[in-house]
């Protein structure tokens, strides 16, 4: 009796091979990001959607005061808007727009703020789209708010505990990172020139279990959007102050003139009036001999 030259593998051998393959996959997985996502809207993509389109040459802006400022979120070209709307809900978006509007409203030379619905902006609409808004809503200057959020999850070495199945529910071996950039970019529509920009950034890091990871990432995304929006508001105030200083100190950076049909007023400034009163007081205290 001859033995079989090619014996079929025994179930034991199959089981060991399968376990080895699983171990290799699991160990390799520890060193690689288990999850990454990215959602963004881009002002550059909106204004300059195609490479073949010639870049618009900006001119020195002519600001005809008082200004009407438009506020809008830059439209997202891809599917990023879905995550943004989920994690930074409409109420929060309105809150941010109101915050930004209030800061613009505090400027002496801004007359009117128009919050522009996102539906009025086409993805990749460019300056032609802004020209339409200018005609439609009388907007001179537009502040576009864009966002860029990247999330990643990495399992650390302790994630070997996933082998136990129950460990993936208990041990927080997954490191999550969420980085968000929000920025307000302010353009003068007529001259196509960038007046200024203000960024807001946020980074959220935490650890959680494999099974709770999706929920935590969603929460992190929302927290990071809110923190970036707060940072944006703070920085916007600084940038607006700088912009006003620049207009005064560098008159060549922008032409400033009255809007046709403006209402003018002659006013005595406080310091001038106070100076006059002081001179009168000096004369009163020391009468002529």
């Amino acid at each position: 009796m001859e033995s079989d030259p090619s014996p079929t593998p025994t179930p034991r051998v199959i089981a060991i091979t399968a376990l080895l393959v699983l171990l290799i996959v699991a160990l390799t997985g520890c060193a690689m990001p288990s999850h990454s996502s990215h959602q963004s809207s881009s002002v550059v993509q909106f204004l300059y959607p195609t490479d073949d389109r010639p870049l618009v040459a900006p001119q020195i802006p002519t600001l005809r005061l008082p200004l009407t400022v438009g506020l809008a979120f830059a439209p997202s070209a891809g599917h990023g808007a879905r995550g943004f709307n989920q994690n930074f809900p409409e109420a929060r978006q309105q809150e941010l727009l109101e915050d930004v509007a209030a800061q613009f409203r505090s400027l002496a030379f801004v007359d009117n703020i128009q919050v522009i619905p996102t539906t009025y902006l086409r993805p990749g609409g460019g300056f032609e789209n802004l020209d339409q808004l200018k005609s439609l809503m009388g907007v001179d200057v537009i502040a576009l708010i864009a966002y860029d959020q990247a999330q990643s999850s990495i399992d650390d070495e302790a994630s070997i505990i996933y082998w136990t199945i129950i460990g993936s529910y208990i041990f927080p071996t997954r490191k999550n990172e969420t980085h968000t950039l929000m920025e307000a970019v302010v353009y003068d529509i007529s001259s196509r020139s960038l007046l200024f920009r203000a960024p807001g950034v946020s980074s959220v890091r935490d650890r959680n279990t494999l099974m709770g990871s999706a929920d935590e990432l969603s929460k992190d995304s929302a927290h990071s959007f809110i923190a970036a929006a707060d940072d944006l508001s703070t920085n916007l105030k600084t940038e607006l102050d700088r912009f006003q200083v620049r207009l005064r100190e560098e008159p060549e950076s922008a032409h400033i003139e009255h809007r046709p049909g403006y209402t003018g007023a002659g006013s005595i400034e406080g310091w001038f009036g106070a100076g006059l009163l002081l001179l009168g007081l000096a004369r009163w205290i020391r009468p002529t001999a």
Partner: protein
Amino acid sequence: MMRQFSVFIFGILSILLAALPHYHNALLFDRTAILGGQFWRLWTGHWIHFSPSHLLWNVVALSFTGAWLEARQPGLLLRYTAVAAPAISVGLLVLEPHLITYGGLSGLGTGMVALLGITLCRSRGFDRTIGVSTLVLLTAKLLHDLIPGTALLSRFDLPAVQASTTAHLLGTLLAVIGNLAGPKPFFAGRISEDQFDKSRNLRSRHQL
């Protein structure tokens, strides 16, 4: 009496008009209406103010300056106001083609400060020092106005209203020309308080 007159025309009248906003449309400097024949607006537009603080500073400064000027040069305030108010308005019509409506007393006010400064400079001693200081203060204000963008970017209560400095320059120019030009200046008073005091002192010495 004349001091009270200045307080009335610059103070009480302005406040009265501020309390009657329904009349503003009929009195405001309005280019279209003026060119349509409503010439009273050349005068009345100066007494219309756009906000309480706009009114406050103008009224306080002008009532004070007007009263002081009347004490030094009786009658000067009335003559200057009667002539300069329409002249400033016509200047705005010509020099500010984009300006549609205008309000505020400060054009007249800066002119009055110029008149007061010049009048005090003609005195002696400490009054002259005060006069020179007044003119220096006025010059600083006008130079501040002339810095590009400063007036346009300055804070005003109502964002829709923009500070116009042309009226200040016109008011001052009219005061200087009217006071200094010619052998018998139009705005120069016939008798000043100083001269009045001197003649009174001389009379009392003679009586003694």
